[in-house]
């Protein structure tokens, strides 16, 4: 039953990514050119609702189904980790024109070339895992 819930959430997420054009290389390029409000509107409106909702959850201590705490643990503070990691991610996001969620969506949409991007992402994740202890965090 729970598996079905995750599947439905995933299907809806996939449709949102595709229909909003957030999965389109053109929209990502246009965003980095500051050529349209579209992507900023998507992220901004998601955030506005996300911030308000998250505050309501925290202030009222609303629990997840089954009574467990919601997954809202604070992240450990660091500057180099998030800044360097973020810059590297941004380079890839702008080059491939896709971030992890849309990659899967585009694979389903039938763009075979995206499999190379996903393969590259798996290799990148693997190399990070191997080098992790040598990198500044």
């Amino acid at each position, binding site marked *: 039953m729970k598996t079905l819930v995750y599947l439905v959430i995933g299907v809806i997420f*996939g449709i949102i990514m595709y229909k909003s054009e957030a999965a389109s290389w053109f929209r990502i390029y246009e965003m980095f050119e500051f050529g349209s409000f579209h992507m900023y509107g998507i992220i901004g409106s998601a955030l506005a609702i996300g*911030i308000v909702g998250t505050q309501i959850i925290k202030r009222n201590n609303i629990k997840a189904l089954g009574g467990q705490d919601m997954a809202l643990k604070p992240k450990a503070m660091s500057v180099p980790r998030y800044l360097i990691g973020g810059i590297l*991610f941004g*380079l890839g996001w*702008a080059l491939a024109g896709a971030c992890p969620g849309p990659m899967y969506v585009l694979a389903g949409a039938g763009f075979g070339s995206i499999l190379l991007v996903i393969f*590259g*992402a798996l290799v990148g994740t693997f190399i990070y895992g191997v080098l992790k202890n040598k990198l500044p965090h």
Partner: protein
Amino acid sequence: MEWITNPWPWYVSGPLIALIMFALLFVGKQFGMSSNLRTACSIGGAGKASDFFKFDWKKERWNLVVVLGAIIGGFLSANYLSNNTVEINPDVATKLETYGITSTGDAYLPTEIFGVESLSDPKILAVLLIGGFFVGFGSRYAGGCTSGHAISGLSNLQLPSLIAVIGFFIGGLIMINFIYPLIF
């Protein structure tokens, strides 16, 4: 049928993304797509190479189901819910023409990069593989991607997520302003 195939405006899409995040919070999970890449490495046996991949990946199976759903969602959208073209700012489209990308307005992804015939071009192969590499490496280094940091983390007012998102834009702006002119 245009109302079905038309793209969704930002004020529909953004709130729906927030709903996805809350739906996952209500079932006790956190919205984050890049962690699936780590899970996939673990399933593939990467634990032999690094302890980073030695974790109970079975606890992350739920997220792989979300990925499966996203794949299905992409299939449904491309085949039944979209005319698979994207209109962008004409000035940006003109700039793309100077890079040799002329499929703007005719395709969902630029055929010059994602078309099957482009796979015989070593430069395009490198763009796809290296782009993916940085997405995978960077998202794990930063501990999250657009969904985990820009949506979930910033919604929870996490300073680390703000630093990461600033990093995303520094990287993206370097790529399109300084590196694109060198490669396209």
